[in-house]
């Protein structure tokens, strides 16, 4: 499908076309000092002319000198909020006359929601959660229903943020698939003090997306316009705020469970769980069974949980991961190591949320790189010991290596 070029006004047309098809629109908007994804009634609610500054444990809104609609990166909450809600009732039960109980079915009838402005890292994160919730033998019916009714308007990133590293994780700054429509926002420089309206390059990723085209206006993009978009995205890949070398990483982490370097993040970690709840791929939840005052009704609720709580690893006798070190290690090794074995992908898409929204300013990329480097150093020390040398036979070296 050829790339199309749209004017800024086409966003209004897009909102209208989606609404006519029964979609509720959820997209970026300002709320309490951040750009969050919330219900939108029109394009005027987009964060026009706003951006943000992100660093470890730090987020501040900032003004732009243009009228970009998508001139920010990602907010505190990922789209999982709308696909895997923070609290969900799974079932209810009512006591019957015979002293038993009757299960009352919980309907899975979510609204149709159009996600406006899904960043490439988040598109990849949705694909990862698809695998978690619907990829195995046990499909989560609620997630599936929400997912089927979600329309994804991706927006590629020409200006990565301070904690972004999607380029390292191979998920951005351009979305390759997993969307219905994808936009690249093109900001032209101001002329005669007049801010230029942004324009958009549009790519279609699904039949549902294609069906909207006639209502959006625009024209086929010229070759130079497509090249300009590609250049902007290629440059963006070189301007990531963070980076992570993933070569051999899962293996290095596997060999580092007893590494004392874990003590450093553990000393700073608050066990607050913010990283896991902000992360677009973390899926852990807890189920709570409650009864009401009369004892005639019971219900089970599922809530977001985190491997930073003691309850998550609580089994007969007590929690398995008591120390903060074991919990931080669980988080890092699951995201970047064991997730691979479990789901065939990395559990990290490089969105940077866990870094920005960690109130202790712990940087996953920094900690993991340090662990990997120390595993590397350990491996080469070991190799040096076993290597035969003229003065020293291999025997002693072998003994040292197996200790």
């Amino acid at each position: 499908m050829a790339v199309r070029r749209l004017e800024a006004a086409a966003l209004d047309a897009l909102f209208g076309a989606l609404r006519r098809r029964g979609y509720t629109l959820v997209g970026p908007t300002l709320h309490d000092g951040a750009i969050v994804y919330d219900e939108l009634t029109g394009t005027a609610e987009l964060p026009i002319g706003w951006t943000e500054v992100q660093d470890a444990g730090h987020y501040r809104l900032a003004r732009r000198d243009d009228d970009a609609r998508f001139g920010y990166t990602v907010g505190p909450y990922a789209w999982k909020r709308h696909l895997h809600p923070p609290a969900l009732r799974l079932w209810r039960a009512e006591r019957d006359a015979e002293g038993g109980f009757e299960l009352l079915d919980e309907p899975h009838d979510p609204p149709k929601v159009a996600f406006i402005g899904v960043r490439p890292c988040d598109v990849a994160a949705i694909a990862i959660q698809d695998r978690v919730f619907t990829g195995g033998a046990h499909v989560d019916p609620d997630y599936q229903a929400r997912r089927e009714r979600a329309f994804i308007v991706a927006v590629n990133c020409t200006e990565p943020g301070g904690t972004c590293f999607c380029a390292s994780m191979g998920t951005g700054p351009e979305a390759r698939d997993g969307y219905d429509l994808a936009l690249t926002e093109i900001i032209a420089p101001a002329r005669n003090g007049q801010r230029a309206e942004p324009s958009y390059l549009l790519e279609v990723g699904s039949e549902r997306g294609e069906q909207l085209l006639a209502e959006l206006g625009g024209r086929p993009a010229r070759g130079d316009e497509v090249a300009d978009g590609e250049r902007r995205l290629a440059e963006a890949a070189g301007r990531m705020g963070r980076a992570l070398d993933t070569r051999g990483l899962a293996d290095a982490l596997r060999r580092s469970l007893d590494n004392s370097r874990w003590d450093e993040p553990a000393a700073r970690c608050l066990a607050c769980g913010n990283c896991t709840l902000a992360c677009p791929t973390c899926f852990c939840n807890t189920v709570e069974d409650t009864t009401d005052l009369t004892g005639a009704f019971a219900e089970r609720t599922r809530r977001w949980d985190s491997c930073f709580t003691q309850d998550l690893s609580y089994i007969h006798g007590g929690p398995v991961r008591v120390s903060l070190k074991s919990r931080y290690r669980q988080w890092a090794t699951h995201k970047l190591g064991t997730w691979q074995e479990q789901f065939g992908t990395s559990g990290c898409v490089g969105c940077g949320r866990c870094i920005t929204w960690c109130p202790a300013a712990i940087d996953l990329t920094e900690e993991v790189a340090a662990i990997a480097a120390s595993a590397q150093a350990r491996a080469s020390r070991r190799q040096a010991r076993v290597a035969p040398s003229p003065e020293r036979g291999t025997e002693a070296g072998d003994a040292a290596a197996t200790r």
Partner: protein
Amino acid sequence: MAPLVSAVSRTADPFVRTGKRPTLAVWKFASCDGCQLTLLDCEDELLAVAGQLDVAYFLEASSATAAGPYDVSLVEGSITTTHDAKRIREIREMSGKLVTIGACATAGGIQALRNFAGPDGGPDVTAYAAAVYAHPEILDALPTSTPISEHVFVDFELRGCPIDKRQLLEVVSATLAGRKPQIPSYSLCLECKRSGAVCVMVAHGQPCLGPATQAGCGALCPNFSRGCYGCFGPHEGPNMPALGDRFAELGVDADGWLRALRTYNAYAGPFRKEADHVERTRS
């Protein structure tokens, strides 16, 4: 003090299933009555089960009282007099399940500041008494304010200053059904993130006790762009020194950190230890 387990509590069965009408008593010690008001605020819910639950003793609501024993006792307030210390043992003996409600009953409350008021940082109530009362010599006050659990066995501690209404209903429902209350002991940040609030530490540079505080209020303050004050006390495993470092990076000096720790839950272990440490090491 060895916890006292009453004979009644060991034999208590789930009331709902046995069909007997359980009796509830509400007791007050040193406190502001705020937690009892939360109970009064559950009026609609409690009226709905009026036929199944006898509120036998609740002076805040009615002066009519029925003699014990009681199946469930809710206890508000801390122990601050020798008379209190004796009375709580009598109440324990009369009660099947004893549930303490609020920061005073679970941690000694704001009045536990006397526990550190002495010149050596130890307990001393004389200065406070002299500042407040015209004739402090007629007072019979202990030098400490202590949680109920330091005096008798407690079946469940419900945190908060004041307690949260939904949590109170959950504890009463669970106690009546003979099941474990679904009251989490993890950090407030989990509730904060679930609620959709924007983190005030990260986005506003405001100090927040949420990462050290037990969930329960639904992240009330962060949802009004304020840092958490720690009303629900320390969570299951807070890293106090690390949060102190973070407060310092946000511009809070040692005095400010000490003030943040020494409020309604000042006497609760992790807050107390960190505050003691700050006092000892402060130049």
